[in-house]
């Protein structure tokens, strides 16, 4: 046993999004929790089927937008009222309506950067190496194949029983994923 490479998990390959979705639901119902599905396009309901409920990304974007509003407005206020006040015919220094366009643009900039950087970071990307790429057929995950991988760290994972379970889901193939 010690000579064999450590196992990351077992991966079943499917032909259609419906099949992988049904398989994910059954695996979840069976009690498996540490698993992931890999698809060539987003499949509605698949992340929920493997037990992933929500992401905090929208909250982060909201916070970034609010921070952008404060930074955008405050920097203009600082420049024109505090650091370099310029009296033009006695008009008020804090001419806030003029500051709105830039404040708005900074809100969008901060929020959009957070949406993208946040998505990439929460997804743990960039990740140059991942065990799933060791499965030769996995290149189909970016073309026309759908995969469900139950990871070896799952408490219910058992080399034989899990293999039998996955084979019972009607996949094209079940492969071992080397660590």
């Amino acid at each position, binding site marked *: 046993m010690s000579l064999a490479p450590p196992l990351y998990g077992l991966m079943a390959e499917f032909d259609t999004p419906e099949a992988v979705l049904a398989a994910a639901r059954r695996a979840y119902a069976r009690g498996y929790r540490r698993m992931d599905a890999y698809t060539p396009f987003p499949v509605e309901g698949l992340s929920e089927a493997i037990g992933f409920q929500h992401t905090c990304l*929208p909250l982060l974007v909201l916070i970034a937008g609010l921070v952008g509003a404060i930074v955008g407005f405050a920097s203009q206020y600082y420049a024109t009222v505090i650091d370099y006040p310029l009296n033009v015919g006695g008009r008020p220094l804090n001419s806030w309506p003029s500051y709105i366009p830039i404040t708005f643009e*900074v809100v969008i900039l901060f929020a959009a950067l957070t949406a993208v950087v946040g998505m990439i970071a929460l997804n743990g990307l960039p990740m140059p190496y991942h065990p799933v790429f060791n499965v030769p057929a996995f290149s189909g995950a970016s073309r026309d194949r759908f995969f469900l991988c139950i990871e070896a760290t799952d408490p219910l994972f058992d080399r034989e029983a899990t293999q039998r379970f996955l084979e019972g889901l009607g996949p094209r193939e079940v492969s071992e994923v080397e660590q």
Partner: protein
Amino acid sequence: MAADGHEHAARVQAHSAIIGPGHTYGSVTDKLGEIVLTTTTPRGWFVGFALGFLLLQLFFMTVPYLIFKGVGIWGINIPVGWGFDIINFVWWIGIGHAGTLISAILLLLRQEWRTSINRFAEAMTLFAVSCAGLFPLLHTGRPWFAYWLLPIPNTLPLWPQPRSPLVWDVFAVTTYFTVSLLFWYVGLIPDLATFRDRAKHRLLQITYGVLALGWRGSAIHWHRYETAYLLLAGLATPLVVSVHSVVSFDFAVGIVPGWHSTIFPPYFVAGAIYSGFAMVLTLTIPIRKIYGLEDFITMRHLRNMANVMLATGLIVAYGYLMEAFMGWFSGNPYEGYAQWNRMTGPYAPIYWTLILCNILVPQALWSDRVKRNVPALFVVAFIVNVGMWLERFVIIPVSLHRDFVPSAWGMYYPTFWDWTMFLGTIGLFLSLMFLFIRGLPMISIFEIRALLPRGEKAQLPPGRQAPTPAAGA
């Protein structure tokens, strides 16, 4: 099912489909991937790129000379301080707007047909905004001081003036460029992963692999990805409206007759979308032909784009009408004169050509026959591109050349260097566009896969023809 039922379905399909019949996840991936991951390049690509690259040489010739001699090589003078530079800036940035409209607003409105053209239009946005940004940058005269436009703490106790629309413009355009770039790149990630997995050459595998960030299509990743994409669309939608509104503030906040008008922001935004869709059509029609993409950019796409052009063109026509009406109705002699001068002054031929190009010719799009005729659509779109450029000519130099007192009147004529600079940016735009087509997926492959009809039958193994799916399935 009865035979004529099938026939009818096929006919409906031909006119309204977003994707041609008989495609599977694999076949769209192969077809769209092959455009880039092949060693043979169609001759049309070389023709297009050569044209762009030739014009690009004008750009490389003009810019160093401009920096060396200064903006005096252009035709700008007093009173016409804004000439081709600002016309071209507004024209290019307007063209960019269609890309954001297609990728963001049509996404939020669940217009699935956008999928075949959004990537391409986003790239167009990016390159058009790059061309646009060059003009004000070089118009500053000393572009090496352009960083003064940004609020960078510096040894001079100096800040940009945030009460000025020109400074708003800096923020609007840089934000717009950044957000467009993010939107485009996020959309590309899954397709870059496809290329990584399909490329044969080691160098390409590494290049696309690095750009794909190790994307593996995990369901959890897709979940966050879709959330981020939707949020970006929601953010880009008000952004795109704000950008051309801010561009119009450059004029509307000034007191120049012909500029000082509250209708400017909405009519600039409509005009931007109008010119942008015209440019998307001008580019997609030849490229669809060169690459044989009739299955992905179908007649339905062309017709929908023509309809958007027709609708925004009518908004623009309303804008012209209101400008003329307000010139008379306001009772302001300067405003009235500015309008009258446009129609009968020394630049009147340009005004009337603009009306012809932007209002009269596009009315042909009411006809279904014109909308089904691809060469005719190309001609109309091209004419609208010209018309929108003339519109900016009429707004900018024509408003400036007659100042409040006749002693300050002048004329504006573009010089050789104005033309080389303009044509040079067209060259830059075309070169970047053709390089993009050659090296990156110009149609979003993963979104096309998601649009394919679902079900076991639709994804039969090769050799067995999939049944014709119902339109919009």
